[in-house]
């Protein structure tokens, strides 16, 4: 059995099978959670490329699968990443109990994660762009559910994300030429520009970011959150593969300066725009832009420090973005719009989720004592050593998102009390209709999330073993 079969083909096949299930119950969700959890556990416990003896049976997970003449490799060094991605997938599936993103969610999320894993496994790694495009195309029926009118955000997302494919594939070809002729400045410049363009489209960086906030107004926050989180995480790891693979990229300080500048711009613009939003979905979109900017800044720091900071930030960000998307999704189900002016009654009815959303926004901004703070501190330290101007931009961005979080807090605290609905005792209502205080699922979700966020903020060394993720990129790490 190969690792690619286990973590790519199996989820895609099961996901496709789950799409055929027509009854309106939670069976696909339970099955998808079960599979995701098992795949997480196997990734965590079973070494790849080692023969394991279980009684009379010997099991070996081979690292490579050959398909149509190309290799799909998930090696032992990537096992921790596999664990992380499937754990994240399990969390997003568990969140579906609260958010109810649709009957297709379990099946399509398995297929999408299988495609994201294929993007990380395919050799040559440049073909990853095609798998990322395929994952996005698969996700469209969730972004625009049947019976709804797709908007301009969807149209723009389709165009911008697919633009990245030709850019990145051609970059790969040009980079091969650069390897053979590193002194050719014109070639290096063209390859660099095309690569920057391709990743700007893929990561929705300024000025190609507009589809994310537009789509955030048109679609369910949880569905968009899933797509943007996985797409950006995998695309950034893909970007690191570029740096790892090509010596001239790794040895060129200008590339890291460019990444640092683009990241700082993303943090600044994401934060400042987030502070101006009155629509919570758009605020989440700009918070995501700031988060991506922070991760780019970490890569831009370069070397071992940058790589360690990148993974130290990616994990708490995943935790925070998941909770933010889940909170907004539940609020979205109980209100016609996520405009702050119209959210009052929903915020009063769901104080725990409102608190979670506020905490998530300020945590993403880098507030001390909360999860991502330690990594933000390392980034600010590194950026400050290289450019005070970029450090100021980063602070302004963080302050902007902080202001956005406080704006939500203000809207919550000043909301008029909810008019009493003429219904019986809340215990008789289904869980999805109950207010937060009477909903044990929301209690469990919010408490575990907040305690973990604080715990990681106070004891950042808790996730120190995760730093082994840097071993995937030994050249960059050196």
């Amino acid at each position: 059995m190969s690792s690619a079969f286990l973590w790519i083909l199996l989820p895609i096949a099961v996901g496709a099978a789950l799409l055929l299930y027509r009854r309106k119950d939670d069976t696909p969700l339970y099955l998808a959670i079960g599979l995701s959890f098992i795949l997480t556990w196997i990734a965590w416990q079973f070494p790849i490329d080692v023969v394991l003896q279980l009684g009379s049976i010997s099991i070996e997970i081979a690292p490579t699968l050959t398909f149509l003449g190309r290799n799909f490799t998930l090696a032992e060094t990537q096992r921790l990443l596999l664990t992380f991605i499937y754990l994240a997938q399990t969390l997003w599936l568990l969140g579906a109990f609260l958010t109810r993103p649709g009957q297709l969610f379990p099946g399509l999320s398995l297929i999408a994660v299988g495609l994201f894993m294929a993007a990380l496994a395919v050799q040559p790694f440049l073909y990853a762009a095609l798998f990322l495009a395929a994952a996005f195309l698969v996700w469209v029926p969730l972004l625009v559910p049947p019976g709804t009118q797709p908007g301009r955000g969807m149209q723009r997302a389709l165009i911008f994300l697919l633009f990245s494919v030709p850019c990145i594939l051609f970059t790969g070809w040009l980079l091969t030429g650069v390897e053979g002729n590193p002194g050719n400045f014109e070639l290096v410049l063209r390859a660099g520009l095309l690569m920057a363009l391709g990743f700007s489209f893929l990561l929705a960086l300024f000025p190609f970011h507009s589809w994310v906030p537009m789509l955030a107004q048109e679609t369910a926050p949880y569905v968009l959150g899933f797509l943007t989180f996985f797409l950006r995480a995998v695309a950034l790891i893909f970007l690191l593969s570029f740096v790892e693979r090509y010596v001239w990229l790794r040895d060129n300080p200008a590339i890291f300066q460019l990444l640092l500048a683009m990241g700082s711009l993303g943090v600044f613009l994401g934060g400042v725009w987030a502070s101006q939003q009155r629509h919570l979905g758009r605020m989440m979109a700009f918070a995501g832009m700031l988060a991506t900017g922070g991760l780019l800044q970490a890569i831009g720091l370069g070397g071992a420090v940058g790589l360690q900071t990148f993974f130290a930030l990616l994990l708490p960000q995943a935790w925070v973005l998941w909770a933010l998307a889940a909170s907004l999704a539940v609020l979205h189900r109980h209100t016609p719009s996520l405009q702050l002016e119209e959210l009052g009654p929903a915020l009063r009815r769901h104080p725990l989720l409102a608190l979670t959303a506020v905490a998530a926004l300020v945590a993403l901004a880098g507030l001390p004592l909360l999860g991502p703070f330690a990594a933000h501190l390392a980034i600010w330290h590194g950026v400050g050593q290289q450019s005070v101007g970029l450090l100021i931009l980063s602070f302004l961005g963080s302050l902007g998102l902080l202001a956005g979080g406080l704006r939500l807090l203000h809207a919550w605290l000043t909301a008029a009390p909810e008019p009493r609905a003429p219904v019986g005792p809340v215990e008789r209502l289904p869980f999805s209709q109950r207010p937060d205080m009477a909903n044990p699922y929301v209690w469990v979700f919010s408490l575990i999330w907040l305690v973990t966020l604080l715990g990681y903020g106070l004891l950042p060394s808790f996730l120190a073993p995760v730093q082994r993720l840097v071993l995937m990129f030994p050249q960059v790490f050196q």
Partner: protein
Amino acid sequence: MADFVGTLAVLLLLITSLYVLVNQDWRWAVAALGLQYVWAFVLLLQAWPAELAVVKLVTGWIAASVLGLTRLNLPQLTTPEGNVPSGRVFRLLAAGLVILMVLGAAPRLTEWSRAFGIYQAWGGLLLLGMGLMQLALRNGFFRTALGLLTLFSGFEILYAVVEGSTLVTGLLTAVNLGIALVCAYLLTAPTLETEE
């Protein structure tokens, strides 16, 4: 002979892509898209064996059919841009700009890398430019699909020269079909039954 075929293929690509860009009638636009894939196939034959190149042709025809059948089942819409002559003139001028750029860029591309033949460079860049114009100047998911498929055709003509892997061919085929299917879904989504 090869020069004649190459020149003819590029000229026919120009006519079909121009027609897709300027024309209002979706039926003729889909037909022109289907024909466009034939001329793209002719250019692909210069880099790939026929059995691999024909995959692109069949994929293109399936994509065009999917879009055509979907559009056929939708009510006829009259768009504000429908019969405004200035809109067509503007698109023609924009197409002229693309042609000028392609005439300048294609020879430089072949000088820069000997891998590209001049007809592939002309054809590939022309479709890339026309696809971009389609995406920039036309609204709606039907036109977006036409633009993206045209753009990817151009890209594939150029990329075929540098990459002949079966996996990439398969993945690009999947992406092309995905574009057609997704746009067909987006066109019909408002008329579909809601989930709950």
